[in-house]
């Protein structure tokens, strides 16, 4: 932007008078103009093009506008010739002059016979502008992106920019006699007026589609397509048009403004003043997509994406005590402005909301005061016991451990038996899905936290687009970290549909997935919300299944957990074991928990919530690295339930050992965090969950982590005994203790191994069954990860061990991984690419 001109030069007087506007001031680089009657959208575009800068419109009374025009430009007789008043200067030129002019300017000349002017093209420029500029569009080619315009005098660059702004096509000018241009304008617009008159709607307000067709933005077949979609989904026409990609958000907002005769706010480059913002509460703005812009003469001008939204109108009237006047801005403009204005508040809300509302349920602190005392006391007693009666103390520890192991084994066996004997998942048949009426489907928010995952963007977009759900009812939020420039660039380089929204999460501690999800949740517009990771490929019908499952379930069910599994199971031995473990966890164990109505530690993705319920629960704990497991327990404590739906999301199994250990260390750390958080008040937990679920929590959350930590101890003792038959071991395993330990070793280990076999079999992964038999080797890795996570809990409790993804080699022939595009086969991420992700399941081995 060049130097700022004086206000009088900012807008040619003729233009200002023709459009009924007057420049008021500069607001940064934005020219604020006042109007009594809001100009049409394309006229506003023209004004901006003429002014060479963004224009913000404020409304003033008509006499005030006239007075200001007079003060600035003098009386109409004093009007200085504007840059675009060329028409008058050439009105008397004859064809010969025009030919010579064309030749000297290197332009084509035409006599402009009537058949050369296509009415549709001519209507791209409004009649008023056409006459003012003495220009008529004769033809347009969307394919070339050009519009051929007949002008009376060669246009300079500004004028061409004006035409381009109006038509959204690159102008190619030809010279024509002015009289012929006038005639062509008359003819084209007269024909259009007649056509409009014939089709005039009895309602005074013109229809949106009609306006768009008239402006040449869409054609009739496109409109019919959008109307058909509207009928099918029950969504407003605007959303249908957006969903079909027929119109952009800005164009839509401008046309709505035109339709409703409201000002259109192209952009908000300068923030509204704080006192103006304070007039409307932030939550009203966020919930109803409102943006207070300015107070003019005691009237608050508020921009809205949908001025016909009655709920928003009511909320606005209830919240604001002064008169308001509406303007229209695109949803994206409002959203981006709100996020810019309220970023610090949103960060605070997404970070500290749970801590503020339920401090005892936040993992902000690892141990509470009482827990610290209890831990020290336990350690002291154990130490004293080891000094005074080492054998008895060790025996007591063994007994406790064995009892715990046995309880876990028995409980897990019971849960799996429930799954084997019943089908506890909420199954939705294909014909039920087919009967779903799209009009009755709720809006759905999909949160996709991304961090350094540029390589996954294409797959992610494809997977979301493959969902069988009306796109106009989707609100997909790509949550990008502010410092992650690569992913931001990658996302912006993709052609995202209108259902995608990019949300930049400001850089702030803790930099965790739950914080990003909370940030996104604040802006969720759906009735339901689900989280997917970047590499997730959900079953296409998952959202519909979740909706149906919610409808069928009692109100207490506030979470639907889809099953997770891996698409790259055949990549190597690690992915095979990992997949077998996942199959066991999600296909046998969690359904068993569901069947017994026990608290379900949720998997990291594909958990579906009603937004209101999730907000009521305080959303995710940003300090907990298994926030999903935590929220599963929290909802159970609040008397709610989780159900498992028979739908799968395919992910990428970590295929490298160190990466796998990092991921597992985070999961175990998170499970310990979750256990500690909820055990701050054991009695309260007992009361809230009930005795059975309290025990289940101990065995599932506490037991999962503890078994992984204890396994190496017992393997070590067993090896020592086998090699040396050391007397100490004989002493600490007397009689019954020895039998119980042997039972655990021989029967428990077999059962846990076999559960992986069963999981693979149930999932239909026949090729994994033989590998599942060797799961005990995999448990050793689990314990390494567990100890890493446990130690990290002391040093860096909220540190998020990111998992490197994008290394999957997916064989296109692999069954059940067909959801992954075959062209991904063999593709690898750039070295060092880090990924969040991964469900926080804690499958355990004895």
């Amino acid at each position, binding site marked *: 932007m060049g130097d700022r001109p004086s206000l009088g030069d900012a807008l040619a007087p003729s233009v200002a008078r023709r459009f009924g506007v007057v420049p008021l001031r500069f607001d940064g680089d934005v020219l604020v103009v006042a109007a009594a009657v809001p100009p049409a959208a394309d006229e506003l575009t023209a004004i901006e093009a003429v002014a060479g800068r963004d224009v913000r419109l404020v409304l003033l009374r008509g006499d005030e506008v006239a007075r200001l025009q007079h003060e600035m430009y003098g009386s109409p007789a004093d009007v200085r010739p504007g840059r675009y008043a060329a028409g008058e200067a050439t009105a008397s030129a004859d064809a010969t002059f025009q030919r010579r002019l064309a030749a000297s300017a290197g332009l084509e000349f035409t006599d402009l016979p009537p058949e050369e002017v296509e009415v549709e093209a001519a209507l791209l420029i409004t009649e008023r502008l056409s006459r003012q500029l003495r220009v008529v569009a004769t033809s347009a080619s969307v394919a070339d992106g050009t519009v051929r315009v007949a002008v009376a005098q060669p246009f300079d660059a500004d004028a061409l920019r004006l035409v381009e702004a109006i038509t959204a096509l690159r102008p190619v000018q030809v010279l024509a006699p002015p009289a012929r241009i006038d005639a062509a304008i008359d003819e084209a617009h007269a024909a259009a007026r007649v056509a409009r008159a014939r089709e005039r709607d009895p309602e005074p307000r013109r229809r949106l589609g009609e306006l768009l067709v008239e402006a040449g933005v869409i054609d009739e077949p496109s409109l019919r397509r959008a109307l058909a979609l509207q009928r099918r989904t029950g969504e407003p026409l605007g959303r249908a048009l957006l969903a079909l990609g027929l119109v952009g958000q800005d164009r839509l907002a401008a046309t709505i403004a035109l339709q409703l005769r409201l000002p259109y706010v192209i952009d908000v480059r300068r923030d509204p003043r704080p006192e103006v913002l304070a007039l409307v509460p932030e939550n009203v703005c966020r919930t109803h997509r409102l943006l207070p812009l300015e107070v003019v003469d005691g009237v608050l001008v508020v921009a809205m994406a949908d001025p016909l939204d009655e709920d928003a109108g009511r909320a606005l009237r209830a919240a604001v005590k002064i008169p308001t006047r509406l303007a229209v801005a695109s949803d994206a403009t409002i959203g981006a402005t709100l996020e810019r204005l309220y970023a610090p508040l949103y960060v605070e809300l997404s970070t500290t909301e749970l801590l503020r509302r339920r401090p005892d349920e936040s993992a902000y602190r690892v141990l509470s005061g009482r827990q610290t005392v209890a831990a020290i006391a336990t350690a002291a007693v154990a130490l004293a016991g080891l000094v005074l009666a080492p054998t008895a103390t060790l025996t007591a520890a063994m007994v406790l451990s064995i009892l715990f192991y046995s309880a876990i084994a028995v409980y897990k066996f019971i849960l799996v038996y429930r799954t084997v004997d019943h089908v506890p998942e909420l199954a939705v048949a294909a014909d039920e899905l087919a009967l779903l009426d799209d009009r009755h489907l709720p809006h759905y928010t999909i949160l996709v936290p991304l961090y350094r995952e540029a390589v996954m963007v294409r797959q992610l977009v494809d997977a979301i687009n493959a969902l069988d759900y009306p796109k106009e009812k989707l609100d997909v939020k790509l949550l990008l970290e502010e410092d992650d420039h690569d992913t931001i660039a990658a996302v912006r380089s993709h052609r995202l549909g209108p259902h995608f929204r990019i949300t930049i999460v400001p850089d702030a501690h803790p930099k965790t997935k739950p914080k990003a999800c909370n940030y996104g949740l604040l802006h969720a517009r759906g009735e339901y919300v689900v989280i997917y990771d970047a590499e997730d490929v959900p079953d296409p019908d998952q959202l519909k299944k979740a909706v149906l499952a919610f409808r069928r379930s009692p109100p207490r069910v506030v979470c639907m957990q889809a099953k997770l599994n891996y698409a790259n199971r055949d990549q190597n031995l690690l992915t095979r074991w990992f997949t077998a473990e996942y199959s066991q966890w999600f296909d046998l164990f969690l359904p068993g928990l569901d069947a017994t109505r026990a608290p379900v530690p949720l998997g990291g993705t594909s958990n579906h919530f009603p937004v209101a319920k999730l907000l009521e629960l305080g959303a995710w704990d940003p300090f907990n690295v298994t926030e999903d497991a935590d929220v599963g327990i929290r909802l159970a404590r609040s008397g709610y339930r989780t159900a498992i739906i028979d739908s799968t999301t395919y992910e990428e199994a970590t295929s490298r050992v160190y990466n796998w250990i990092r991921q597992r260390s985070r999961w175990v750390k998170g499970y310990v965090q979750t256990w500690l958080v909820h055990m701050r008040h054991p009695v309260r937990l007992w009361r809230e969950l009930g005795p059975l679920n309290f025990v289940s929590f101990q065995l599932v959350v506490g037991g999962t982590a503890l078994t992984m930590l204890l396994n190496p101890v017992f393997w070590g003792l067993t090896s020592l005994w086998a090699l040396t038959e050391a007397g100490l071991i004989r002493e600490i395993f007397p009689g019954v203790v020895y039998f119980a330990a042997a039972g655990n070793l021989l029967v428990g280990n077999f059962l846990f191994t*076999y559960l992986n076999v*069963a999981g693979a079999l149930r999932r239909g992964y026949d*090729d994994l*069954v*033989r590998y599942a038999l060797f799961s005990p080797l995999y448990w050793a890795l689990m314990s390494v990860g567990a100890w890493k996570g446990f130690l990290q809990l002391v040093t860096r409790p909220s540190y998020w061990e990111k998992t490197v993804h994008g290394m999957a080699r997916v064989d296109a022939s692999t069954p059940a991984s067909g959801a992954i595009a075959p062209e991904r086969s063999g593709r690898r991420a750039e070295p060092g690419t880090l990924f969040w992700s991964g469900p926080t399941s804690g499958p355990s081995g004895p």
Partner: protein
Amino acid sequence: MSPIAAREPRVRRSQRTPPVAPRGRARRLLGREAVGVFATAYAFYAAVGLYTTLVLHVVVGDAESRLAHAFFVWWNEPAKLSAIGFVWPPVQTLVLLPLALVRPFATSLAALPLTSAVFGAGLLVLVDKALAHGGVERRLRWAIVAAFGLNPLIVFYAGNGMAEIVFLYFLTAAFALLVRWTRDQRWQDPILIGFAFGVGILARYEVAAWLPLAVAGIATVLARRRASAARIEATLIATLTPVVYAVLLWVYLNWSLTGKPIAFFTEQVPGAAPLRSHGASLVLDALVLQLKIFPLTLAVAFVALWIGARRRAPLGLVLGLALCVNPLTTAVLVLRARDPILLQVRYNLRAVPLVLVAAAWLLGLVAPARRRLAALALLALLAASIPVTAATMLRSEHVLSEGFFLDGLIHGRDQDGRVSPLGTRLSIRDEREMAAFVKRHVRGGDTVLTDDAATFGVMLADGHPARYFDRIDRGDRVWSEALRNPVGRAQYILVKRGAVRANAANAFDRIVERYPQLGRPNGPKFARLAHANRTFALYAIEGLR
């Protein structure tokens, strides 16, 4: 449509009842029905069992031995899991562990019927479900279940605490699951079949004879359905893994605790008696015995084989062969052991409940219009087999206590002291009398040196195994050392008199083997007879080391 259904031309499509797993309400009703059947059957078997055990004193020595060793697991000092023994299959003892924990249940022997009734009732539930899946209407189904459940052999074994009913339950469960899997292809059924065989084999080793049939059935059915090689492999791995692990675990335990990994297999039968019969006649004997025990067996086997061959239905062949395996197994075992004692009725029960599973499957193939008639015929045949079985129990030379059971029930007579055609004597009173003497006169732990394999009845009746210095306490090596020089190691020696012959080597008293002249003038001088009855003798050890 399955290949089997595709080859059923004689039944009109409209008449055929598709083999569909019960769903929703039907499933819940079937669940409630199972509870009802189980509760009724359990109450009946437990009541009959308690009466015959506690009042009529019909107690099979093997059952008492398993209970005694289950009791020793908890009450020995120190408690020892190895007390379950390593010759006979361990599940027989393991199932008795829960009730053996309660001393009065064990010492009174009430634990025996109370435990076996669980498996007897479970067996009837399996039969009931198999018939339900075969499309037999409810009342008729119940009648058939009752006719089967009232068969005197089933009543006897469901109430006597023997291992027979345990392995019958698991074997029947395996084949009932196989039928269900063939029909419904439920992913979990091969797993459950595997576990049923795994536990079944550890309840009675011969159950392994049916495993190849089941595995072949699974593989054939999958191959007929054009399943992938990976699917066949996975299914077989899932089926066989529990079996292989169970056997390996047992081998390992034997190896680690006795040093003889497969002694349970090689030493189970000693070949004590010469065998004069040859293979063919043995098979014939076994077939005849089969007919006498449960005449329906061979008839149903024939029909299943015929249907299987005619319709190329693998399941028909598998079930038919499963019914024929029993006499073959008996013949092989007798030949291997060279001991005709294995022709006992108890060893030939194996296929009896399988008959009902096969019959239920066959009924499912019959058109609904004729199914009722067929089911009525089955009911009549089952009812008719009751007297046949009863007659065999009373008159056969191959019975142990079966005849005492019926005799006791019919006449209400106490059977204690009676000797079976095979030479075993019921000796509950002797055990209790000796136990009472020991309790009155012997104090302290490890005071009575005894071979628990022979005197378990006394130890159990006493209720304080810590009093006895037996082979369980510190193992055979230490016990044998004590046996070589008992003076100073114990105060008494308890032996079983007469070396009553049983079917296993360790049923003989090793003290009597070591000191055959014990108590006689020319016997060891350190022993003085303290007390004796018809079955047991207690000697006081005298002298200095």
